[in-house]
């Protein structure tokens, strides 16, 4: 694995900024006031967000080895505690803090 140079880091951040700006400005450029939005775009607007969040959850767990080492037990316990806390109290901050603390305790003290 190679480490990025500062220039490469700046370019990577610039690309992320540009990509983010494209997603924010594009609709205003493509659909000036009074123009009808294509149905396919509206459809993607409905179905893409949940799928992308699903991808992100998997992305976060991509480096976990389920078949060796600690078998991903800290990660599974962390995710489970986030989910249970959230279904119980529905408080975003509590769920994130609780799950993260649970995970940190497991990787620091148990595994």
């Amino acid at each position, binding site marked *: *694995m190679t*480490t*990025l140079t500062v220039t*490469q*880091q700046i*370019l*990577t*951040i610039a*690309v*992320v*900024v*540009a*990509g983010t*700006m*494209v*997603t*924010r*400005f*594009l*609709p*205003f450029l493509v*659909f000036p*006031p009074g123009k009808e939005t294509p149905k*396919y*775009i*509206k459809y*993607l*607007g*409905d*179905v*893409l*967000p*949940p*799928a*992308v*969040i*699903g*991808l*992100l*959850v*998997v992305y*976060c*767990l*991509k*480096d976990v080895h389920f078949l060796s080492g600690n078998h991903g037990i*800290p*990660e599974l316990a*962390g*995710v489970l505690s*986030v989910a249970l806390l959230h279904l119980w109290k529905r408080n*975003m*901050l509590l*769920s*994130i803090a609780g*799950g*993260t603390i649970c*995970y*940190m305790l497991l*990787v*620091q003290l148990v595994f």
Partner: protein
Amino acid sequence: MTAKNQVGTALRAAFPHTIPILAGFVFLGIAYGIFMNSLGFSAIYPILMSLFIYAGSMEFLAANLLISGGFNPLNAFLLTLMVNARHLFYGLSMLDRYKGTGKKKFYLIFGMCDESFSINCTVNVPKDVDKGWFMLCVTALNHTYWVIGAAIGGLFGSLIRFNTEGLEFVMTALFVVIFIEQWLHAKRHASAFVGVGVSVICLVLFGGGQFSLPAMLGILGVLSLSRKTLEKKAEVEAA
């Protein structure tokens, strides 16, 4: 009303709406700053990234892009487009609401994060308050909370005495919470299944380093191909 009064009135009207976000953003911002610090980045990284990217989940992922997988701008760009694709649909919803806001429109669009969007598209602005300035204040206040949080975390993260091993899990926790929230709000879960399913298949096939691009294309493909089925289901349920 003078211009100064107009801004002051809008600020006073906007602030109460942003208080929950003040708490959330400062907390998450600090976590982001500490996270960056724990990866070995100086405070200037979280400060500039929170200021210019200003899309929470993408900032965590950008940190990942900086430390793993090598230099791959195209992959970074496509990942950003996919992760932030929801902004496209915020934009579509705000086309009318941002109309007539003049020069403020540029910043309103630049700072359109999930939270600012949800306030600006739902709040009824009082009649004596200028709508453009109100939305600008909401956007700017939220942006400020986030940058301040990231700056605190980035600057003072190194002073933290406790062991921060495992803190990176805050990103996973954030996405799990968003995933559950979306699940609870949605009537149908087909696209959430497609997202997780295609991603897991691609992870097994391509490995952790390179699965995201095929996964993104796969999700777009499957959702496009199943459009008729999914739309028909939606119509049946709506009827």
